[in-house]
C-alpha cells in the first residue's frame, strides 16, 4: 500500500478514503475552538440546511442556470470545434481557446449592455466563461485523433466531409461527455460569481454570498459541502451516462 504503482482493489481504495476522511475530521474536531467551526457544528448547520426548503429552492435555481449554460456552451463548443478542421474556421476556434486568458472583470459592463435582464446576463457570462475551456479540451481531443482513423475512412472511399462526420462527430461523441464532466467544475465555480451580479433570482451563489456577508462560517462551509457533494454527484452521473450511451468506453 505504500509502494509506488501498487494496485489496490476498489474496496480497499474506498476504505482508505473513508479512513483518511475520518482521521482528518477527527483531527479537525480536536483542534481548540476558534473562528473556524468544528465539523460537528458544520454537520448541525448542514442538517438544518438540508431540511429547509431554502437550500433546495436555491439549488434548483442554480442547477437550472448551470444546465442551461452547459447546454449552450456544448453547442457553441461543438460547432466551432467541428468547424476547426476546416482551415477557414481554424482561426476562430484558436481565438476562442485563447479567450480563456481573459478575465470577466471589466467585461461584465459590456455584457450588461448586450443582455436584456439579469437572467440573460448570468447565462451569457457563464457561457462566455465555460466555452473557452470546453473548446480547449475538445480541440485537444480532435488534434490527438489517430491519423489511422481518417485513413481507414478514406480507404473505405468516404469523402472528407463524411470522414469528418464519422471520425470526429460520431467517433468523438463520448469525449463530449468526458469534457463536460471534467469542466463541470468550472461552471459550478463560476455560478457563485455570476449569481452575485443579479441576486433577485436567488441561487446557491446568492445564498453563499449572504452567509459570507454575515461571517456565518458554519453555513458557509455547510453550503460548500453541499456544493461539493452536488459536484461529485454530477461527476458520477455524467460518467454513468457516458458508459450508458457509449458502451465501448467501458472496455
Amino acid at each position: 500500500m505504500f509502494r509506488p504503482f501498487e494496485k489496490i482493489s476498489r474496496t480497499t481504495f474506498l476504505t482508505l478514503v473513508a479512513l483518511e476522511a475520518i482521521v482528518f475530521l477527527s483531527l479537525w474536531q480536536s483542534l481548540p475552538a476558534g473562528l473556524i467551526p468544528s465539523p460537528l457544528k458544520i454537520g448541525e448547520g448542514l442538517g438544518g440546511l438540508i431540511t429547509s426548503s431554502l437550500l433546495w429552492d436555491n439549488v434548483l435555481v442554480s442547477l437550472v442556470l448551470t444546465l442551461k449554460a452547459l447546454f449552450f456552451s456544448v453547442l457553441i463548443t461543438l460547432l466551432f470545434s467541428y468547424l476547426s478542421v476546416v482551415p477557414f474556421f481554424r482561426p476562430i476556434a484558436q481565438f476562442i481557446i485563447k479567450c480563456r486568458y481573459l478575465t470577466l472583470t471589466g467585461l461584465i459592463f459590456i455584457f450588461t449592455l448586450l443582455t436584456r435582464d439579469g437572467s440573460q446576463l448570468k447565462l451569457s457570462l457563464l457561457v462566455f466563461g465555460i466555452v473557452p475551456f470546453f473548446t480547449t479540451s475538445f480541440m485537444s481531443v480532435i488534434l490527438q485523433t489517430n491519423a489511422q482513423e481518417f485513413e481507414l475512412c478514406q480507404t473505405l472511399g468516404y469523402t472528407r466531409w463524411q470522414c469528418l462526420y464519422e471520425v470526429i462527430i460520431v467517433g468523438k461523441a463520448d469525449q463530449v461527455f468526458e469534457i463536460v464532466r471534467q469542466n463541470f467544475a468550472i461552471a459550478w465555480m463560476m455560478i457563485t460569481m455570476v449569481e452575485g451580479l443579479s441576486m433577485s433570482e436567488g441561487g446557491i451563489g446568492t445564498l453563499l454570498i449572504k452567509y459570507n456577508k454575515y461571517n456565518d462560517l458554519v453555513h458557509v462551509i455547510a453550503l460548500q459541502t453541499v456544493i461539493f457533494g452536488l459536484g461529485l454527484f454530477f461527476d458520477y452521473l455524467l460518467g454513468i451516462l457516458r458508459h450508458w450511451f457509449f458502451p465501448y468506453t467501458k472496455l
Partner: protein
Amino acid sequence: MTIYSRGETLLQVKDLSLYYDNKCILCDINFSIDDIIRPGIQQGQVVSVIGRSGIGKTQLFRTLSGLQQPDKGQILVRASQDTTPFKAPSLRTGLPWTLRPVHAGDMGVIFQNYYQFGWRTIEQSLRLAAHRNKTLKGMENDAIKEYAAQFGLSDVLKRYPRQLSGGQQQRVSIIQQLLKGSDFLLLDEPFSGLDVCVLDKVVSLLLKVSLSHEFKTLIIVSHDIPTAVAISDTVFILGKKDGQEGSTIVRTIDLMERGLAWEKNVAERKEFAETIREIKLCL
C-alpha cells in the same frame, strides 16, 4: 507447368519517386501488375513487395493506397467501367476500361495493426464498408452475414474491436475491404506477429480471396520472405541500387515462370529454397 497467360494491365507504377526533406526515399519505381489468365479458373493476382526494414515499404504502401501523393511519377489503376472518362474495350471481358491515377479509396487497405473504429461494433463497421459497394445495394446485411459466416466471425458481429483477438481483427479488416468491393487489396505486413497456426489460416484466407474474382489483386508488403513468396505469383524486391540514394525495385521475380505459383506445399521444393536464397541476396 501450369498454363497461364497475361491479360490487360491492372496496375501500373510509372517513374514513382518520393522525397522526404529533399532526400529521395523511393526513386524511379516502375512496375506493373497484369491480369493473370488461367483456363477454367477464376484466378486473381497475388503480388509481394519484399524489402528489409526501413527500406521504404510503408511509404510505398501508403503511396499505392493513394493516402500519400508521390512527388514524381504516378500510379495508374484499372478503372471500373462506369467511372471511366475514356473507354476502351477490355480484351478479356469486352467491357470498357481504362487506367487512371489512383485515389484514396480505390484500394482496399489492410493496415498492419488491423485498425478498426473503436466506437463501432463489427457489424456497424462492416456496414460502413458495404454501403460503399453499389453492387450490394439493398443486400448489405445478407452480404455481411455471408462473409462473417465464411470467415468464422458470426459470433462477434455485435462486439467492439477491442473485444476481438488479433486474428479476428485481421479477418474483420479483410472482410471490410472485401465488402467495399475494391479489386485491389493492399496488405501491410499481414504475417507479422502471427503464430504458426494462425499464419496458415491467414495464408489460406488470402488465397481464397485471390480466387474470388478474376481481377482481385492482392499486393502484400512484407519482410516475411518465405510466407510472402509461397502465396505469390510475382515478387518485387525493394532495395537500393549501388550509388542510388533511395530505394527502388531492384528485381522482379516471376514465380509462375518458375513453376512456383499456385502450388501446394511449394515451400518444400528445392526451387523454392533457391528462390528464397536469391531474394535474400538481393536485399
